[in-house]
């Protein structure tokens, strides 16, 4: 083969010499995979001067003929590689070979034109969690991986329920997209983690704003998009296995992916994860009943061509999560004892058993999607998906009920959508779509506990349009609008006493259906019309300097929890009351991002201002006497809120091998109606890391990282007093004061070992987190009252790519 190539070269050269001064030169060469030197078939080479296109042949050889003397710009691309632009001069005396970065590792980062803005915003910076970072968190949760981005924190319940928080907002205000499907997994609850196995993702994108209007118009906080890895169009079989072991929790995980692809465009991917940990440990004690047992799987089968594609996808997610035993308490008097105690009141020996309280969640997601390109129209896509979310919460109960779940909810969601992407001109592209969504919630009455979330049917009709406009090669505009109409049909049992106390009996007598003892069945049918819009631009100054500016208007209908909560929330040890009269939240967010992503000093500056009308928050209003003692009553309320903040990322290449990165995030949140700080705003934080890279020595990568979190000084005072009969004293229940500042050091090391002619490799990594076993509590951890956060962990991970 090589002989053949050389002969060709010589012939080519001979030609060049023979026909000088005419437009009859030719150039040729090979397209080579930089990673393993294999020759790439089917690469596209476009001569940008003339638009002429050639492809590399089965031997990876390309040839342009009939060239004139001068400088040529060639764009080389391959389905699996970063496209590259190269300038060459003609005539050339030597064959010109092109090396492309071609590796499974990089798949997640390849952007393929045509699909680009299906998940992109032109005017908001896309914050990416790369595949390599996701793999480091293979044994963790998606929330942990997202925490590595500036401006993204998490609201935790212990260390296994990790809810992403973007610029201070979480739960229903953050939309999570998996494989193009908006997750419907009871995201309203603060202690409900996203039901996603992060090992299904090729990369995860975070948009700190509501501009991904093709998915939702109510993402007031932002959007998290988990994208599957791309598959190449060639005959191939590849995959990976990642094994993880960790000392803290004495457990680990195994995750594996295998993909088979065909040149015809057919592909299939099978993926699975099992994760098992026992009780985690704080520096000084075992966090009893905090184990986790997760098992997930997904399968994807499809065919993809330039003109059409069809795909079926199914994923299964199952997680059993232990909730710190010491966090389950009775009333205010128990709260005093738990908060005042330096350590959890219940500490038992380490075990893998998950007792009560615990959550058992299962999520099924099935989707069929197809697209077809139609000449003079564009790309039409259609999809149908079904999600089924089952949630059990087991509590500490008495007698016959001990084995029964206290919460048993089934949430089913069907969605059908049709989109059209068209290029109106070379510079203007438009994407429009319609969607219909039906959701049913069923709360099983067998629990013997009044329903936390009532039975309901919800119907939502949506329509959106987004346009990208290229004003010139440096300036892009983006405009979008969306409208959602939501209507609910709810069957809710209220306590008659509450129904009357709120005056609902006079406001909404038409909703009353029937009275059962001290409960009343009602049939509210709220509906919400929500408009959202976005406008923005990005300007490329050159040298990697880009300015993004974005305005987004988002409106969010209140979620079932905010509307219908009415009773004791055991996991929070408080009575929570919603309000039937709530209207939609209206958010206006302005964000500017200045980014420089080339050169030895790179940075991202991202200040924002965010005004939210009808912001729904929950706050304590009084203490209620019950036979079980005193409970604090928290009521949802609507107010005006302002959030201001900035996220900063800096990256300095000190030498070829040393890189210093810094992250800083700050959010200022204020309830402007009452002029008090908003609760649960992330404290200012700073992350500094020093990385040492020697790519040539087994891809050696060493990283020392420091995470510093200030004490949150801005918080509302929700403390209250309770009388303790035993000591005959009034004791303060301090549920407000944030914990002290803390500083954590971690270290990571990684090396790669190719085998089998460099086609495969083993990557071995080691992580030490909380190196000095620092005792600390995190303001955004709902269990911070009861126990310290995690102590030191030493983890080992081994990845095999084949």
């Amino acid at each position, binding site marked *: 083969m090589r002989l053949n190539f050389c002969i060709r070269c010589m012939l080519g050269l001979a030609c060049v010499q023979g026909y000088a001064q005419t437009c009859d030169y030719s150039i040729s060469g090979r397209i080579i995979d930089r990673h393993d030197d294999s020759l790439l078939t089917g690469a596209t080479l476009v001569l940008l001067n003339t638009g002429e296109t050639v492809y590399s042949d089965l031997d990876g050889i390309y040839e342009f003929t009939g060239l004139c003397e001068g400088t040529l710009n060639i764009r080389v691309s391959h389905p699996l590689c970063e496209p590259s632009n190269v300038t060459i001069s003609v005539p050339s005396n030597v064959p010109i070979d092109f090396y492309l970065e071609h590796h499974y590792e990089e798949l997640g980062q390849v952007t393929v034109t045509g699909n680009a803005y299906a998940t992109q915003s032109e005017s908001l910076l896309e914050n990416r969690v790369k595949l390599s970072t996701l793999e480091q968190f293979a044994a963790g949760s998606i929330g942990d991986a997202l925490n590595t981005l500036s401006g993204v924190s998490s609201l935790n319940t212990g260390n296994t329920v990790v809810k992403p928080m973007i610029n201070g907002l979480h739960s229903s205000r953050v939309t999570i997209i998996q494989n193009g499907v908006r997750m419907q997994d009871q995201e309203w609850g603060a202690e409900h983690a996203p039901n996603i196995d992060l090992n299904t993702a090729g990369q995860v994108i975070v948009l700190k704003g509501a501009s991904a209007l093709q998915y939702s118009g109510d993402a007031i906080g932002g959007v998290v998009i988990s994208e599957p890895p791309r598959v190449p169009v060639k005959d191939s079989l590849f995959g990976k296995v990642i094994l993880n072991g960790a000392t803290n929790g004495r457990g680990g995980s195994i995750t594996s992916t295998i993909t088979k692809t065909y040149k015809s465009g057919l592909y299939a991917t099978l993926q699975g994860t099992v994760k098992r940990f026992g009780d985690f440990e704080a520096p000084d004690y075992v966090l009893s009943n905090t184990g986790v047992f997760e098992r997930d799987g997904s399968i994807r089968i499809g065919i993809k061509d330039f003109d059409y594609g069809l795909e079926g996808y199914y994923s299964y997610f199952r997680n059993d999560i232990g909730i710190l035993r010491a966090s*389950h*308490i*009775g*009333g205010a*008097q*128990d709260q005093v*004892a738990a908060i005042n105690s330096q350590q959890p*009141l*219940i500490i038992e020996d380490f075990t893998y058993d998950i007792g009560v309280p615990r959550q058992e969640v299962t999520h099924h997601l099935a989707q069929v999607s197809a697209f*077809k390109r*139609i000449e003079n*129209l564009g790309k*039409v896509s*259609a999809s149908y998906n079904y999600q089924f979310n089952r949630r059990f919460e087991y509590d*500490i109960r*008495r*007698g*016959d*009920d001990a084995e029964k779940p206290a919460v048993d909810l089934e949430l089913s969601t*069907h969605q*059908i*959508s*049709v989109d*059209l992407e068209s290029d109106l001109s070379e510079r203007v592209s438009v994407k429009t779509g*319609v969607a*219909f969504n*039906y959701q*049913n919630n069923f709360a099983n*009455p067998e629990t*013997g*506990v*009044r*329903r936390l979330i009532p*039975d309901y*049917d919800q*119907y939502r009709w949506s329509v959106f349009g987004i346009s990208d406009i290229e004003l010139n090669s440096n300036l892009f505009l983006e405009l979008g609008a969306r409208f959602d109409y939501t209507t609910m049909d709810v*069957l809710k*049992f209220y*306590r*008659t*006493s*509450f129904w009357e106390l709120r005056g609902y009996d006079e406001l909404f007598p038409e909703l009353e*259906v*029937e009275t059962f*003892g*001290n*409960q009343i*069945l009602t049939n509210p049918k709220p509906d919400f019309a929500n408009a959202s819009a976005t406008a923005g631009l990005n300007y490329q100054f050159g040298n990697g300097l880009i300015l993004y500016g974005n305005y987004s208007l988002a409106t969010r209908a209140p979620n079932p929890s905010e509307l219908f909560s009415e*009773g*004791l929330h055991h996991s929070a040890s408080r009575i929570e009351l919603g309000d039937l009269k709530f209207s939609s939240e209206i958010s206006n967010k302005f964000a500017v991002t200045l980014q420089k992503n080339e050169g030895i000093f790179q940075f991202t500056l991202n200040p924002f201002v965010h005004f939210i009308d009808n912001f729904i928050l929950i706050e304590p209003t009084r203490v*209620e*006497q*019950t*036979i*079980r*003692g*005193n409970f604090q009553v928290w009521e949802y309320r609507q107010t005006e809120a302002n959030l201001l903040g900035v996220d900063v990322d800096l990256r300095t290449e000190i030498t070829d091998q040393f890189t210093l990165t810094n992250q800083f995030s700050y959010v200022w949140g204020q309830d402007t109606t009452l002029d008090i700080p908003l609760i649960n705003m992330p404290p200012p934080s700073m992350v500094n890391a020093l990385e040492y890279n020697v790519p040539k020595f087994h891809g050696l990568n060493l990283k020392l990282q420091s995470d510093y979190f200030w004490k949150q000084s801005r918080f509302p005072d929700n403390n209250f007093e309770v009388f303790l*009969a*035993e000591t*005959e004293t009034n004791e303060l229940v301090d549920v407000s004061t944030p914990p002290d500042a803390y500083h954590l050091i971690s270290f990571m090391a990684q090396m790669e070992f190719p085998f089998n002619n460099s086609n495969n490799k083993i990557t071995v990594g080691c992580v030490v987190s909380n190196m000095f076993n620092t005792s600390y509590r995190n303001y955004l951890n709902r269990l911070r009252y009861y126990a310290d956060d995690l102590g030191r962990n030493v983890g080992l991970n081994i990845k095999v790519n084949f």
Partner: protein
Amino acid sequence: MKTISKFLILSLVILGMASCNNDDDNTPDPVNEEEVITTMTITLTPEGGGTPVVLQSRDLDGDGPDPQVITPVTVELVVGVTYNGTIVLLNETETPAENITEEVEEEDDEHQFFYIPSSGLDVTFDYGNFDGDGNPLGTEFTLVANTASTGTVNFVLRHEPNKPNDGTLGDAGGETDISVTWDVEAQ
């Protein structure tokens, strides 16, 4: 354009099916809280005869907004008399009312009552029943008013306390199932 209209028609059809499918208007069953204790009745029977003193705390809407009703306003005890106390717990949201005392007594190793008189009140409580390990349960007890005095008594039921304990709530831990306080006058 034809393909588009096909897609639209398809979506409308599915939309229609989805809407129809779930029109069955079956009314959900109400849930009666099975574990809730609405009512605690403490009967103090004087040894050697006499009218029993009955203390009751009743909160029929559980953790709903209605306050619990505590009777009597002041519990009157006679100095020197020994009272045999029994505690009955009911869930009156169910019909007929469920006797929770039976459950508590079945799970005697996981429960314990505590009687906490205020410092000015000179009374003595003694446990009247015990779990299988000989640790106090306390749905039965004796009460003696030693001298004329006034104050309060707080009755607390703890679920899953440490057993044995030193008789204080702090040492017992666990979770509060009941905590009710009465004004008491011994004369």
